[in-house]
């Protein structure tokens, strides 16, 4: 499942505040789609910013697939936002990893800007009430164990 992101409305604050409704609309030529994060309330959301040229992302994708497989039924939604300039590069990466979770495209970087992404990759874990609780800059095995634990904690919260 892939969707395009460009023009966006709504306010976002990273780090412990409520995420307001924000719309992810498609570019001209595609039917406008919007993702209502409020509709995702009740689910734990793992938001990940990635790129085909980001070496640690080659590790994070198998891990995210494992998380999706293990916890999707318990309420985890993974949304991976791609920031490649060139869509073809992203497609080649996806060919290799064939992820089952949602992939979105933000080639202008407006979403990365909005979330103040300060390193690649960046992941933000949002709880069932839409509050951004944890941010991880970078991906490596030791840190991903921490993320997995945090996901389990948030899934356990009702």
């Amino acid at each position, binding site marked *: 499942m892939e969707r395009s992101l460009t023009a966006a409305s709504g306010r976002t604050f990273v780090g412990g505040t409520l995420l307001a409704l924000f719309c992810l609309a498609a570019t001209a030529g595609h039917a406008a789609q919007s993702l209502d994060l409020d509709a995702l309330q009740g689910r734990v959301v793992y938001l990940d*910013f990635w*790129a*085909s*040229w*980001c*070496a*640690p*992302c080659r590790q994070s994708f198998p891990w995210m697939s494992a998380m999706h497989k293990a916890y999707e039924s318990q309420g985890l939604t993974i949304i991976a936002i791609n*920031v*490649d*300039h*060139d869509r073809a*590069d992203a497609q080649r990466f996806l060919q290799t990893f064939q992820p089952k979770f949602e992939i979105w495209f933000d080639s202008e*970087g407006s979403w*990365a*800007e909005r979330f103040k*992404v*300060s*390193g*690649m*990759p*960046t992941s933000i874990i949002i709880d069932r009430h839409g509050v951004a609780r944890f941010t991880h*800059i*970078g*991906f*490596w095995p030791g840190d991903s164990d921490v993320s997995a634990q945090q996901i389990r904690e948030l899934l356990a919260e009702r």
Partner: protein
Amino acid sequence: MKTIMLIIGAAVIATAGCSSVGVKPWQRDILSRSDMRPDGGGLDDAIDDHLYFSKEASSGGRAFGGGGCGCN
């Protein structure tokens, strides 16, 4: 050559101090390519360095890190 290098070098140092020079973390696609990395030459650089060291009076000066994808 010395003057040109001093001028450009001073410019590099001056810009290094500016926090506005550079790119956002998600704009490092081209910089992450091997041909854009200062250490991307791999074994070629080591072999060249050894060759020039044994035939000329100068050696080294090149070094490490920075640039690249900036990941992690």
